[in-house]
């Protein structure tokens, strides 16, 4: 019988622990009580101090700093070793690009099963029941895993970031990589930044998204004007990203960002299930669409039917007026 829930913590954009990993750590703490388990963390050396302050019982650290470039074999080898040492009931990852790359590799290495992209999770004894969107968001499936460790990647915001306890002493174990685990296969030739000037979707409280019905990049200019006025990030459904009207980093949906802002304004978006499963948890949803039967209205709290090319300028004008009178 395993004693641990093992959480993989990755390095985020700013060199610190990725917030998504901290959320998983917080979630693991919540689950560990009823499961009668302890939380173990596995982390690259450079973030181990910070991870230790977030409450795991013990932390397994890599023998060296995380390699630069694309080196999943190194991570998989490190995690395989950490799993061998901890014999966990489950290994939890954030559903980040790295998590999605590593979880299947680890599952295969350990000969166990995996469920990715969990939108909900609860424990039943030592088993985890994992709910996720399937068929492009048309259905919600709940899975359990019959083999251990149960390997799961989790969407953001399922757990709360645990409070830091500076100076907390945590048992630290240094993991040795097995033979061959340190050789990269892929040489990083170049990294091309396609940075967008947009506000980060994941961090925004208000998001204004445009769909195919915006008609072109100029449509997004209007959206940006509205967004600027209300402090919103600009997102999109998939077609505008595919057509290059806006960078793909702004795509919302099952293959884009999964977000749950306070307010989501969907402009000229029909409301396909693949899109809805990326933003359906927003607190308030506002839909603007010329088709009164558009699916998006079924999920919206506020709706306006009409041509967005006329509705948006009027919205902007009114908001400017209200703002000037404040």
């Amino acid at each position, binding site marked *: 019988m395993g004693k641990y829930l093992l959480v993989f913590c990755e390095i985020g954009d700013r060199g610190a622990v990725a917030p998504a990993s901290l959320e998983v750590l917080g979630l693991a703490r919540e689950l560990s009580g009823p499961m009668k388990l302890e939380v173990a963390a596995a982390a690259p050396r450079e973030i181990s101090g910070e991870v230790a302050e977030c409450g795991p019982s013990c932390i397994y650290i890599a023998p060296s700093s995380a390699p630069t470039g*694309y080196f999943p074999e190194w991570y998989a080898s490190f995690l395989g070793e950490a799993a061998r040492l901890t014999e966990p009931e489950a290994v939890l990852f954030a559903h980040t690009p790295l998590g999605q790359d590593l979880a299947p590799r680890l599952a295969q290495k350990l000969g166990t099963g995996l469920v990715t992209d969990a939108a909900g999770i609860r424990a039943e004894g030592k088993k985890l029941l994992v709910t996720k969107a399937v068929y492009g968001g*048309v259905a919600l499936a709940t*899975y359990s895993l019959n083999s251990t460790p149960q390997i799961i990647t989790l969407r953001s915001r399922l757990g709360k970031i645990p409070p830091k306890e500076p100076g907390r002493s945590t048992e630290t174990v240094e993991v040795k990589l097995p033979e061959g685990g340190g050789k990269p296969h892929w040489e990083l030739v170049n990294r091309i930044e396609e940075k967008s000037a947009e506000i980060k979707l994941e961090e925004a409280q208000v998001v204004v998204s445009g769909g195919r019905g915006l008609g072109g990049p100029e449509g997004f200019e209007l959206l940006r004007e509205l967004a600027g006025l209300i402090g919103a990030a600009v997102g999109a459904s998939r077609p505008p990203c595919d057509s290059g009207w806006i960078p793909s980093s702004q795509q919302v949906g099952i293959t884009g960002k999964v977000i749950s802002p306070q307010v989501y304004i969907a402009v000229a978006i029909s409301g396909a299930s693949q899109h809805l499963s990326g933003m359906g948890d927003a607190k308030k949803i506002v839909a603007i669409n010329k088709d009164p039967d558009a699916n998006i209205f079924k999920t919206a709290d506020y709706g306006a039917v009409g041509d967005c090319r006329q*509705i948006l300028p009027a919205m902007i004008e009114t*908001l400017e007026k209200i703002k000037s009178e404040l």
Partner: protein
Amino acid sequence: MSETIRILVCIKQVPDPEAPASSFRIHSETKTITAEGVPPVINPYDESALELAVRLKEANPDVRLSAVAFGAKLARAVLMKSLAVGADELYLIEDPSVEADGMITAHILAAAARKIGFDLILAGRQAADTNAGGVGLALAGLLDIPAVSWARKIELEEKLLRVERVVPEGCEILAGTLPALVTVSHEAGALRMPNIINVRKAKTKPTHSWTLADLEIGKLPGRSVELTRLEAPKRERHCQVIEGESPAETGAGLSRKLVQDGVLNLRS
């Protein structure tokens, strides 16, 4: 004389994910989903993988391109599209007796890949039905070959591979050697349309039908992923529709309402 480079593309048959949500019926009692009038298609991510493979074949005459599909029941006519866009042969592995999960599928594909032979394997980053994304990378692990995920472009020069891999804020260009497996992301683009002549030609290309008995699989792992519940997401909300004499009035009304209800806060 240059050697043949064998490219294998894994294609999964799924119900058309672009079909309207209303055509999917969820049966919670039996934990099944039926898709009325929804035709099966090749998983769109696998189609992107196929597109990259066809481009490699165009750029490199020494490529021999095979498509391989595994499923309980396969629609030959749908999967023949792979031949019509440029694959040289198609392998259909059908076995209604296995209820496969991702890991079982990976084991079956690994056995097939060993039997067919390969230098490069391509697969979509995930399937549009289960949305799991485990098979490609697990397959690479089973074959003990290096894998890179989420490619949008692939180039091949002799046995050297150059992959453009999608990352959140751009892309990474990676170089490596064959054999290897690459999972392909939708940024690679959609699969070309087959032209009529090639659709006809497809019928003359070899299609191999296998069952598990044709593969040297040994013992398959047990099924580890168990479906315990299937339900429709609850997304219905009550929508307050803002009325107006004209679209402009509607827009103005919407702004006023959102500020009034505290949905939008203009003070911050």
